[in-house]
């Protein structure tokens, strides 16, 4: 598979070597309190090309986070295979992970948090500091190295988490509802920054979101999940570079949005009891 045709050629200057993500017949179940097994991911076949930006959308509890953990190597599948490039995933700085609630280490400074991912490697102190500083500059936090997470706004904490995920120059970036807890304005800024960053470094991205608009703005491809399975795989052929303010004007955007919403309506009607999309989707709907 090749990367999206709309991607400018400048991207090939990216430093990291590209790696795709491949799920083949992946299932994962958990044992719950009373000893019963609950199935979180069922028979997922999914192939994500290197440098592609894929959004993953679906109701709460449908297995999105589990799929990301599997791709990060934090969980082993019960059945099936996962490959990053041509090897099974192994947790480490070569696969970047951004969690929803930032997960910053509160007693470490911004620089200490960002450097954390590199400390397992045998870098000397100057080299480490140098890379941390460069990474902080890239996410716009150059002057904040000595601050503690408690002193930062939500958007800045998210930038720290992003810097920490990026400092290992990952070829794969996994993001689990990274902007869900940000206010609307901060969120749009972060979306634009993420797009600019992706256009520069071009990792393969698997991005979980509750928001149809966010998925359409960011991704080359939107995967709809339900009940642990992939229900729909939609290509987004909107031109790049995209920015949050102008992407929504495209007519293609309206068509895709309408289509995704009809799929989501089907999901709700098929299983009205399921804990469905949270208030973010509600908000999207009101806006749209």
């Amino acid at each position, binding site marked *: 598979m090749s990367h999206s045709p709309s991607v400018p050629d400048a991207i090939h200057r990216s430093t990291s070597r590209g790696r795709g993500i491949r799920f083949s017949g992946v299932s994962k179940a958990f044992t719950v309190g009373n000893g019963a097994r609950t199935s979180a991911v069922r028979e997922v076949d999914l192939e994500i090309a290197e440098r592609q930006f894929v959004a993953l959308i679906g109701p709460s509890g449908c297995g999105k986070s589990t799929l990301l953990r599997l791709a*990060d190597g*934090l969980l082993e599948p019960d059945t099936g295979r996962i490959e990053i490039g041509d090897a099974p995933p*192994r*947790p*480490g*700085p070569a*696969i970047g*992970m951004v*969690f929803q*609630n930032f*997960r910053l*280490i*509160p*007693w*470490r*400074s911004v620089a200490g948090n960002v450097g*954390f*991912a590199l*400390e*397992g490697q045998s870098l000397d102190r100057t080299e480490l500091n140098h890379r941390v500083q460069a990474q902080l500059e890239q996410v716009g936090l150059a002057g904040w190295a000595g601050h*503690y*997470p*408690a*002193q930062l706004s939500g958007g800045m904490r998210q930038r720290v988490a992003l810097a*920490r995920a990026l400092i290992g120059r990952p070829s794969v970036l996994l993001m689990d509802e990274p902007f869900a807890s940000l206010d609307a304005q901060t969120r749009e800024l972060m979306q634009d920054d993420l797009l600019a960053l992706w256009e520069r470094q071009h990792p393969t991205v698997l991005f979980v979101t509750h928001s149809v608009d966010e998925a359409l703005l960011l991704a080359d491809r939107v995967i709809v999940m339900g009940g642990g399975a992939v229900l729909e795989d939609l290509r987004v052929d909107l031109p790049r570079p995209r920015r949050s303010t102008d992407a929504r004007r495209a007519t293609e955007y309206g068509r895709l949005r309408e289509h995704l919403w009809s799929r989501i309506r089907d999901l709700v009607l098929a299983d009205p009891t399921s804990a469905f999309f949270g208030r973010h989707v509600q908000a999207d709907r009101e806006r749209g």
Partner: protein
Amino acid sequence: MARRSEHASASPWLIAAMRLGVLALLMLLWAVAADNVSRNIIPSPLETFEAARRLWADGRLPTALGASLVTYLGGFALAVAFALPLGIVMGAFGLLGRTIEIYVYALAATPRVAFIPLIILTLGLGIEAKLFVVFLGAVMPIIINTYAGVRQADPDLVEMARSAGASRSRIFRAIVLPGAVPYVLAGLRIGATIGLINTVVAELYTAVTGLGGLLALYGNTFRMAEYFVIVLTLAAIGVVVTEVLRLLELRLTRWSN
């Protein structure tokens, strides 16, 4: 966290001034009480001050204070040296922790005075027995809190560290142990308080020495001014130790403002 920042926003000068104000008020109440209750029961502040000067000059107060501090700080240091590693190991190895915890809780719930006859029989009446009584009082809260702090490591942070490729030992050093610090400090504070109480208990029940010994002597002979001096000295030790631990806590949790 919101509470904490509210706390920090009150100026330290204001707090100091308020504390001095309360001290003045207490002195006033004390003076009034001394005037109205029989002199033999409540000595006046001035009498007490005179008694303190006498006790200090004739060397009795310094000697007793020194003896008590050796017992207290020695026993407390032993408790810390024993409880911190044990609590950490119990927390790090779940099976071991679950095995031992029940005995720790049982021992913590038993009034420690119950052990004193046994301690005297095995260790005698000297400094060993006293150190052990203090040790026994201070050790339980430190073990229990350290254990709880290590076990209650934030699972989200641990998963984040795993995702970053950290080894088990690095996760323990970088995430679990620092996360336990507030618990450990709370344990130290409780341990220090119980340790001071047990210092006096030890000095009353074993060979009568130190501040506890003077307390019994002056209490039994109704020398209330001297008795008050000893009580105030004990209170001062408590304040100093608690403040030192509080400063340590402020220093170690600067990041939380």
